[in-house]
């Protein structure tokens, strides 16, 4: 029995390395029954917090600039500055300079902000919800996250101060730097890029 398992493992490992299509690997039954268990719906729901650019993962709720301004002052300004200008090691969040071009590759003194660099607006919800504020990450309720997102997008001149941010409107926002991002296609070799 042990030898059959060992052989099966070798075959499976070879198959996994050689064959990148998953269809062949899902045809046979998993060989390690009893190791690991089915996840409960509650387990998945409590950790499934990511949001992608289509808006998948955005919860019910909504937020406004006015509500976000109050929240920013009480929960964010202590680290990020009253106007999101940054303090010490905590980054600047707000700013649209430089308004033309995308010169960050030439000058590292230029600060990358939400408005002049972030390619996707949905990232703002994903990140604020999972990681902020630094001392209580994950504690913000959905309406508060939406409100902070509305505030930051408005202060970065992406939306106006009357736009309501929710699961429908956030994925439709196109960030100014979106087209600047190009996926790495290098494979090594003599030419250095």
């Amino acid at each position: 029995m042990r030898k059959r398992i060992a052989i099966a493992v070798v075959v499976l490992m070879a198959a996994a390395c050689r064959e990148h299509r998953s269809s062949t690997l899902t045809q046979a039954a998993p060989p390690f029954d009893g190791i690991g268990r089915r996840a409960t719906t509650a387990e998945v729901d409590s950790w499934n917090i990511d949001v992608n650019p289509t808006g998948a993962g955005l919860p019910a709720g909504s937020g406004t600039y006015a509500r976000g301004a109050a929240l920013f002052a009480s929960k964010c300004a202590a680290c990020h500055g009253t106007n999101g200008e940054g303090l010490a090691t905590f980054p600047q969040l707000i700013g649209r300079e430089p308004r033309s071009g995308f010169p960050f590759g030439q000058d590292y003194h230029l600060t990358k902000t939400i408005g002049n660099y972030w390619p996707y607006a949905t990232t703002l919800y994903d990140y604020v919800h999972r990681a902020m504020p630094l001392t209580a990450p994950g504690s913000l309720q959905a309406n508060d996250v939406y409100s902070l997102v509305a505030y930051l997008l408005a202060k970065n001149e992406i939306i106006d101060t009357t736009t309501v941010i929710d699961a429908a409107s956030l994925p439709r926002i196109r960030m100014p730097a979106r087209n600047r991002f190009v996926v790495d296609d290098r494979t090594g070799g003599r030419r250095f890029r």
Partner: protein
Amino acid sequence: MSEKRISRRELLAGAATVASALALEKLPVAEAQTTPVALNAPSDPSAVPGGPTTPVSARSPFETPARTPSGIITGPAYSPIHELTGTITPSDLVFERHHAGVAIIDPKRYKLLIHGLVDEAMVFSIDDLKRLPSVSRVHFLECSGNGRNGYRDPKPDLTPQLIDGLTSNGEWTGVPLAVLLREVGVKPSATWFLAEGGDASKLSRSIPIEKAWDDAMIAYAFNGEPLRPANGYPARLFLPGYEANTCIKWLRRIKLIDQPNMSRDETAKYTDPLPNGTARQFSFVMDAKSIITHPAHPARIERGWNEIRGIAWSGRGKITRVDVSTDRGATWNAAELQTPVLSKAHTRFRLPWQWDGRQSTLMSRAVDETGCIQPTYSSFVAARGKGTDFHFNHIRSWTVRADGTVSYEVVA
């Protein structure tokens, strides 16, 4: 809903208090680690009995290698690479870089969730992961920001630690991610996977699924023992050759997905602005690099025989050659590579050198198996720009002065 204004001092003090309180509470208290030796060794150690055996060895009190902790919960601690020999980084000197401090995780409560585009979402305990087929591989780990100090602010008193100390090398043991994906059954529509940490940053990265079938592993041990908390205890994702932020520490979740998530750490961060007005995204692979670790600042050498030593590595495979120059790049000689040369691992190189006492600039240039040659500083600037943010692999140079002192230099 609380509207209490939080002051920055409270935030930082609170963070430090919470972090240190948890650390004191949860970390095991080490037993007396030192063989009781006097700070000064006896004048004749052969004339007096020594100390007893101990449960855990400490270093000689005469050896005090250390990282450079910054005292905050974000940011790096550089490994003292210029004080290390060979290729294996001692586990307690592996570099650190965190986004919300070191998580303290009880292994009995640890869970790895694998879900998304799978036949069955599953949860694995640490015991489950350790029971599954295991592999051990020697590979480097390198932060994508490694080398930024030497590029942006090339001061003469920079050390290899401060230039390239965000890299370490050792033996990783764990379960191949392919084995786990085989367990849950991956749907054909899954082209990426999202990996997420269970620390306060919950850092998440999207990885092409080909890497999972290739050499990705869930590592639970390093250099023969469980990971240290500072390096992801009890389990992390490990992607050989890829920038270290993708090797998610304190891994809690893998989600099979059909498009990249575009998390903050693959958009706002860890993208490379280029001089042509674009930003390179998903630049996972660490480029070929080498650095001379001796002679380097702050060493002082003697005239005559010296061995030039350093490390070289590439995220694309093996190092095939390291050229060393002692005349500021006019001529180059191939250094000896310590065998076995391993793929995606630090490779020790050595070149014997008779120093004639005159000022000399030493340089090293790595070549990897794809034919990639470590670029000169000016080639690097031309390709990437002065403002680029990551992947700084240009040639590093050290100038030995007539008095034997050594300083860092950038040679165009």
